[in-house]
């Protein structure tokens, strides 16, 4: 192994091509992972932030706020379920918002929530006509105290402060009182307006793990309840996004595996004579193979280190809110781990060839 590492140090040019290709693959892998995380984070923040044991939609809503309706009678049934301690209504409307100073077509996409029970990190509902805003809206030029005009009806909403990681469906969330939300909905989506005390969903707190099932059983299927994690996964499009990206990431890892496999297979063919000599001198096949793996791991680690640094720099250089890229240590480490596994597996293609190298080849033909 020492020999293999010495070769890496003394002949870095030999490994440059593989390192460059692997660096590009690692950048792609980390960038795709960052995009996936960014997309999911910007789609699910509002649900992840909920401090709830159950999120309750109406029975046929398929976890969609737009399709869901919870009237006071149904809410009363939910409140009556054993183990339920707190219930708060929640509703959402997604609109474009005019920001002072921006052009008339330069709208900020917002998802305005009306809520009774405050999510984690969000203060209690503000006064009528006011809202807490997710900090990502700052990228659209929104500042503290600014009044923005929401929807085609240009309903004025005063921004009174900012919260973090609460976006929904890729749009900046606004957190307002139920009355504010209901009036914004009526003014801008007349087709979807709701009667007094009607919400789209309920945030339920209580005791016991089986609260969602207990609620659905108590309402005889009039509700469709989820834990927070289930509700996150059930947001329309989230699972599809994850599956699509994970497949692309899987293909990228497979490409890395093939690149490493081919490179080290070629290197092994090129070194057959040298390995024959080393075997004649007493090298075990395992020693030679361990050297190959060590080289592959070091080359991959260098590529991953360079790629990780570049992706972090890219994240810092990109204007906030320009693309949904979320670079986290977890994603970088996962990408490195996947590449290292690919490196070891890729090298294993050469194992048979290493085993088959005959030390007799070192001293000419076996005549």
């Amino acid at each position: 192994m020492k020999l293999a590492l010495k070769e890496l140090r003394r002949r870095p040019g030999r490994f440059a091509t593989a390192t460059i290709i692997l660096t590009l693959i690692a950048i792609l892998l980390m960038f795709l992972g960052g995009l996936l995380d960014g997309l999911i984070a910007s789609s699910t923040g509002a649900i992840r932030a909920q401090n709830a044991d159950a999120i309750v939609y109406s029975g046929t809503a398929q976890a969609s706020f737009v399709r869901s309706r919870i009237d006071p009678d149904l809410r009363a049934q939910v409140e009556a379920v054993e183990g339920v301690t707190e219930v708060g209504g929640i509703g959402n409307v997604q609109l474009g918002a005019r920001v002072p100073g921006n052009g008339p077509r330069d709208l900020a996409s917002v998802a305005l929530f009306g809520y009774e029970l405050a999510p984690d990190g969000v203060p209690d509902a503000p006064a009528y006509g006011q809202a807490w805003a997710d900090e990502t809206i700052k990228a659209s030029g929104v500042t503290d105290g600014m009044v923005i005009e929401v929807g085609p009806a240009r309903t004025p909403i005063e921004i009174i402060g900012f919260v973090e990681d609460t976006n929904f469906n890729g749009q900046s969330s606004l957190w307002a009182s139920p009355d504010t939300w209901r009036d914004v909905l009526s003014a801008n989506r007349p087709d979807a307006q709701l009667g007094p005390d009607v919400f789209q969903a309920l945030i339920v707190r209580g005791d016991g793990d089986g609260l969602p099932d207990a609620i659905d059983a108590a309402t005889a299927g009039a509700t469709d309840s989820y834990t927070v994690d289930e509700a996150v996964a059930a947001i329309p499009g989230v699972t599809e996004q994850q599956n699509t990206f994970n497949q692309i990431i899987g293909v990228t890892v497979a490409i890395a595996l093939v690149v490493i496999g081919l490179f080290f297979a070629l290197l092994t063919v090129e070194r057959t004579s040298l390995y024959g000599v080393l075997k004649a001198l007493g090298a075990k096949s395992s020693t030679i193979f361990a050297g190959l793996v060590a080289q592959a791991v070091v080359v991959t680690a260098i590529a991953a280190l360079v790629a990780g640094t570049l992706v972090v720099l890219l994240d810092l250089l990109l204007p906030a809110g320009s693309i949904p890229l979320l670079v986290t240590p977890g994603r970088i480490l996962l990408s490195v781990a996947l590449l290292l596994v690919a490196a070891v597996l890729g090298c294993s293609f050469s194992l048979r060839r290493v085993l088959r190298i005959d030390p007799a080849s070192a001293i000419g033909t076996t005549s």
Partner: protein
Amino acid sequence: MNTASAGPSTTTVTTALEMSAVRKVYTMGDGSEVVALDHATLTLGSDEIVALVGPSGSGKTTLCSIAGGILSATEGRIVVGGEDISGHDAKELTKFRQDKVGFVFQSVNLVPFLNARENLLVVDELGKRTGAPAKARADQLLDELGLADRAKNLPSQLSGGQRQRVAIGRALMNDPSLVLFDEPTSALDTKLGEQVMELIRNEMKTRGTAAIVVTHDERITHYCDRSVHIVDGRLEA
């Protein structure tokens, strides 16, 4: 100079090599058999240098490979430095090569990215890993071979003769009972070839190490204690 064997698995180490009725048969793809070595019997004293002379395809490389534990014989008994390797499996042969034999290959085959000193230390790294004693031995060998000032040079920075001397140093690193030289002068001109044979003789005799020098060049056999001819896999004294 030759002595008889003392027992089935060990011998007194007054003989470097004992080969008794050794056969090597290759089975070809069509099922036919080719006898590469036919009942070869050869004994080397502990500091004897034997020239193994024969034309291409005569079986000299096969004999050398079997004596060096690189190939297994089909039949016969092989004892090197007191160790009977006739029944050794691949793992045992690897260990045997680390400890008991040295090789100098026809095309020298130094590791190209290691300097002269490191090429000697490869033997220790692949084998016993003694560290400091190996480094001291490498320095001593390089000094004795007149390469002390070339220790840090890569093979590409050395002349053909210097590379050959590094290869000899590498073969002596594990203090072997037997060193096998495969056509050591084939790539050298006559003068350099004679110098290398002189060096081989001096180094082997100084250390009391036995050697087999595989060659088809009769002009260098006088540097050896005796010559053994091999034709069609059969040894002729």
